[in-house]
């Protein structure tokens, strides 16, 4: 479903240009507003649609298999931590959906690991990753090894 931009809503801020994973939202030189330069490389991932502060971007199903007359609109609200979808069918039926996008305030729960205690040499030489073994089972159990699980490697055909 390639995206397109409504001329009267876009102010050329460039958020969509900044985010598009396919690098296909560009600002038109003459009108100073955004447009999709390569619709056949659009995944309709909606990243640009979600990022546009003016709801200027919409999606029209791929012309080679999607008839006209539908719409799927979205509002992603970072503060509320929700995403709201509105699906409108060609025949006018409407469905609404609301989901959470995070359970935490943005930008607060992920620590800068520079501030964590330095791992010991023992840990460096072990098979443990950061915060393991605790984070694997959330108890004191250790990580699995071949010995702990009674396993061997064998050449041959096993199913």
């Amino acid at each position, binding site marked *: 479903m390639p995206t397109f931009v409504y001329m009267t809503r876009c102010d050329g801020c460039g958020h969509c240009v900044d985010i598009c994973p*396919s690098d296909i939202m560009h600002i038109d030189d003459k009108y100073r507003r955004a447009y999709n330069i390569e*619709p056949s490389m659009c995944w309709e991932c909606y990243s640009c649609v979600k990022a546009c502060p003016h709801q200027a971007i919409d999606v029209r199903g791929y012309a080679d298999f999607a008839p006209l007359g539908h719409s799927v609109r979205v509002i992603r609200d970072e503060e509320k931590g929700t995403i709201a979808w509105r699906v409108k069918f060609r025949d006018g039926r409407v469905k609404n959906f609301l989901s959470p996008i995070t359970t935490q305030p943005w930008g607060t729960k992920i620590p800068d*690991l520079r501030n964590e205690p330095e791992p010991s040499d023992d840990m460096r030489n072990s098979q443990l990753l950061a915060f393991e073994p605790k984070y694997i089972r959330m108890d004191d159990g250790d990580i699995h090894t071949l010995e702990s699980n009674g396993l061997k490697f064998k050449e041959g055909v096993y199913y």
Partner: protein
Amino acid sequence: MGIKTIVEDNIDILVVGAGLGGTGAAYEARYWGRNKKIIIAEKANINRSGAVAQGLYAINCYMGTRFGENNPEDHVRYARMDLMGLVREDLLFDMARHVDSAVHKFEEWGLPLMKDPKREAIGAYMREGRWQIMIHGESYKPIVAEAATKQADKVYNRIMVTHLLMDDKKKNRVAGAVGFNVRTGNYHVFKSKTTIVGAGGASNIFKPRSVGEGMGRVWYAPWSSGSAYGLLIEAGAKMTQMENRIVLARFKDGYGPVGAYFLHLKTYTQNGYGNEYESKWFPALSKMVGKEYLDTEGQHLSHKPIPTCLRNHAFISEVNAGRGPIHMVTMEAFKDPHLEEVGWENFLGMTVGQAVLWAATDVDPKYENPELTTSEPYVMGSHATGCGAWCSGPEDISPDEYFWGYNRMTTVDGLFGAGDTVGGTPHAFSSGSFTEGRLAAKAACKYIDDGKAEGIVVSNKQIAERKEQIYKPLENYTIGRNEITAGTVSPSYILPMSGLQRLQKIMDEYCGGVTVSYVTNDKLLNIGLKKLSILEEDLEHIGAEDLHQLMRGWELRHRHRTSECVTQHTLFRKETRWPGYYYRGDAMKLDDKNWHVLTVSHRNRITGKYTLEKAPCYHLVGEEDEK
């Protein structure tokens, strides 16, 4: 254009491509490398790049050891069975024993994991199937991006990495990477002691079923340019199981996912005439692959799942027999409003296009069973397929043939991989790819601390030569464009899109794409290789009108190199190991006697010649297997 050269020097860990694997790598690198210089070079914007740009509705790899659900070896056995016996079981066991710790971190970081109301007391997650848990994952990518960004010294967005740099002093050692900024055009040189490639798998190398605007609605993202493979093969890294491309049975045209539908909604498939069809094809198929892989009587008793490719085979055969289309029976499940909501949100959370398509065509699965299709093939290494680099496993478990010092290191010194990059590790999915990035990063830190990255030399000559090569398509265009009045047809250059379409046609027709019902043979593959090598000559004459096209040009080069390797591998393996993914018409049976092995290829960096060999397939064996 005034192209500046920007050199980032003295990097310890360079992460190329920050998808799920790359973000995991950057995160973990800081834990073990407190004072190390960690740099990310990403083609798009880290906050929405890669296969998880639109989000996910499930984490497909979670053991749940904490809730007594599975042990790592259970996952290994499952992946082995699904891939018809051939996986790197050391890498899989290692990924599986660590993956839960990543998922528990995701939850802490804010990713909403759904809880199972029946097991509320212990806080167990909602299972979609034995390996999958359900999430509200719209912001999965921004969350892991934050985890990576916080730890990195710098994130360079919009850098298309085109080549890896090699040490000019010591043979077969990596020295960083080069690329260009898709916005400014600047030439970027990253000199680094180690490089972790997480640049993702390949879509769009086989002709897609939709070829107009819909060409972008591929199953794997259109920006999955096979760079993980293109970069590595060029650097001389050995690759494994590249023939093991994947075909997906998905909702028609939109390629909406089916996992939650089958597992959680308990929908099922039937042919165009309302009949069950799978079981009809299984007796003959069982003869093709052997009873061990498909036991028509015993499969249900043994609780072994039917391999993904074999289910595809039944689908493809039924359609070819003239009883299509195959439908997903949703009308029963969608009577339950909760399941209906899950069905829709599943699309909105990871494949919005499918919702758009159903809205456009008035398909409401409550009143109509939607059509399914089998997709064009994809090359990647983290779904139900294991294409990728031949990497070392961890020291405590890997057999000798699978171990050369550092976990997830390729056969090039200092060059590591994660996610789709690593071969032989199917069923890693998002969480497993992130975990592999973590494993690679810890090993990379150790590699540096062990003094393995001392004395790397990168000559100015190498840097200058790469620069000239990278920008040549802009020059081709400027010169060639003067010859013609207007339009896209020139006698001296071809546009990246034209080159891509030629590639797709070759791969489709000669290497087993959709238009030939996934069938190929030695004759076709040899012709394919010849055509690919002529295409390579033409790729010297790609014309790029602007920086965006220049990026498309380099994506095409990576896709081309990936395709060549896939074709070489497909030719080497003289059997049909995965019916439903592809068929060798000249060797239609599975042949365990000769081919119960992993295939390993090496492309000589100077001559471009491939050498292929068989590597032993080691299995994890417990006491009950030996009885």
